[in-house]
């Protein structure tokens, strides 16, 4: 490093420019996204359809679906809350089915030596090469085989199970990363204290990887919350439709749409996920997919 002559002022300007550059890179590409969200918001409180960012009269009537009956042609939903409930069952179901299994397997992959361990890890990566698209047809067949067509709540749970199965490889991989980051000594000490291997896992290790657990829990919740096609295909009665299917009927062909209502429902649909993420930022920052960094 050569000797640098500088005045305090110059350094300040340089620092300012640097930060300006940093913020420009971070924020300028965000402009479209923020505008789109703003549009969605404006639309949802606008009395008439608006194509710009200025509402045509402000109203809350687009959010009326939250407290009053909703009609689409003949379909009538007395209230939206049972639908929200279905979505919650689905999303929480996926989380409940997915996370414990991923935690068990992640632990085994990280801490145990067994035949087929490396093969299993390779398999997890390889599964990622299979496009979910086309598995759909085969999955439909399997769901039918399991007799899960049109069974209401049971179908919801079945869909949750399938979604959990689809998500579990990725989660396992993430949690394995978290387990890798825990010093082996900790576990060892617990076992010397008389804990069984399972107890150690549950009482010592799980609390430590709580951030990882909540990260995969969020992913799982999100995948359940967003599920559309399987739910639409397999759920027969509209009492058991989740929010995503409901939204589909709102969107229609982009023709008959009540834009305000659509925007309001869309916001309502995204909001929980957004909140979840906002609250779990710190957790996400602890994600370690490829082992911790050893300084």
């Amino acid at each position, binding site marked *: *490093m050569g000797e640098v002559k500088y005045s305090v002022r110059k350094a300040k300007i340089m620092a300012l420019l*640097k930060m300006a550059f*940093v*913020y420009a*890179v971070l924020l300028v590409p*965000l402009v*479209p*996204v923020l505008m*789109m*969200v703003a*549009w969605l918001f404006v639309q949802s409180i606008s009395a008439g359809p608006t194509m*710009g960012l200025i509402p045509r009269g402000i109203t809350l009537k687009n959010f009326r679906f939250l407290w009053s009956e909703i009609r689409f042609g003949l379909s009538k939903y007395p209230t939206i809350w049972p639908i929200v409930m279905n979505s919650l069952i689905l999303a929480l179901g996926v989380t409940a*089915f997915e996370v414990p299994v991923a935690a*068990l*397997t992640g*632990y*085994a992959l*990280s*801490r*145990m*030596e067994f035949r087929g361990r490396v093969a299993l*890890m390779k398999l997890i*990566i*390889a*599964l990622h*090469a*299979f*496009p*979910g*698209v*086309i*598995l759909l*047809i*085969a999955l439909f*067949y*399997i769901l039918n085989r399991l007799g899960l067509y049109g069974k209401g709540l049971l179908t919801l749970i079945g869909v949750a199970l*399938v979604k*959990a*199965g*689809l998500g*579990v*490889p990725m989660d*396992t991989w993430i949690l394995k990363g978290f387990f*890798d980051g825990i010093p082996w000594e900790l576990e060892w000490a617990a076992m010397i204290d008389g804990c*069984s*291997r399972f107890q150690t896992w549950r009482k010592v290790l799980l609390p430590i990887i709580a951030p990882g657990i909540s990260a995969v829990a969020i992913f799982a919740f999100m995948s359940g919350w967003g599920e*559309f096609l399987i739910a639409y295909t397999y759920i027969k009665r509209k009492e058991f439709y989740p929010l995503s299917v409901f*939204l*589909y009927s709102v969107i229609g062909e982009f023709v008959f749409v009540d834009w305000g209502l*659509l925007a309001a429902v*869309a916001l309502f*649909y995204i909001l929980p996920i957004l909140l979840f*993420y*906002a609250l779990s930022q710190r957790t996400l920052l*602890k994600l*370690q997919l*490829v*082992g*911790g960094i050893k*300084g």
Partner: protein
Amino acid sequence: MEIRSFLRKLRPRRMPRLGRALPYIYIAPFMAYILITWIAPVAITIYMAFTECRWTVTRMRFIGLENFIRIFTRDIYAVDAIYVTAIYVSSVLVINAFFSLILAIFVTYFVGNETIASAIRLAWLIPRITPAVIYALMWRWFIDPRIGPLNAMLKALGLPAPSDWLLTLPYSRLLMIAVNGYVGASFGMIIYSAAVVSIPKDLFYAAKVDGASDFQICRHIILPLLKWHIFFVTSWQALSLLSSYEHILALWAGAGTARAAGVEVWALYAYSKAFYTSDYGYGAALSVFLVAIGIIFILFFFKVFGFERMMQPSRVEV
């Protein structure tokens, strides 16, 4: 719950000498899931690729290699689809794996205020967490030459603004890259950010004391430490992109339009064959082809990036 009671029985044994079975008990539920949702469907799909299957899985007619022969000899769209897929995967990968790295370092290392950093990260997550249909709707508004703000902004900047973004090449492909890039950037951003956060701060302080500039810190401390993360994100995202299609489908609202716009990627082509023209057998063959390419990718990553080192346990079991 069977596992729990089973393990409870084993409790008297103090030392973890539960025999060879224990790891398999741990992975048993996982294997059950995988069997139902992955192995079985994959097997069915592979079999389906060798059949003519027009309606349902229950009615397949074995036709041997016919579908694959069709891909290589008679399919007039295959070459285009490969070309589009290559453009798509490589361009979006640059955003997903490298631009996201810049974003992560900037937001984690440079932005001091944690609240602001959080807000920025959250904003970058929006495209990812918005359902595809709504995301597509928002983009349709944004790019609309008449009412959307994009062209107005471009014109204000003196840049060329096409009369139509959806169907005019090369704009349609730019759009495809942007739409998917926004979705993908956050994945790398989260993983890299987490990695940067986990670097002990002392390292930065020490370097600063030695007179290193921020750029040098990034170049000589952060980047080397993030090597594995970059490898991981690159390969993972390459595979994800190879098989992703839903945002293209949502925005172009139909396979026919996507083809005309020059944005029909291979996965979308397979989807449209299966679900729009009900040629499930051929759609399956197209996906099996895609999987073959994916596997080649994986082997490549394993070899070139020495990916296998990630498979090692962090500590060797006693």
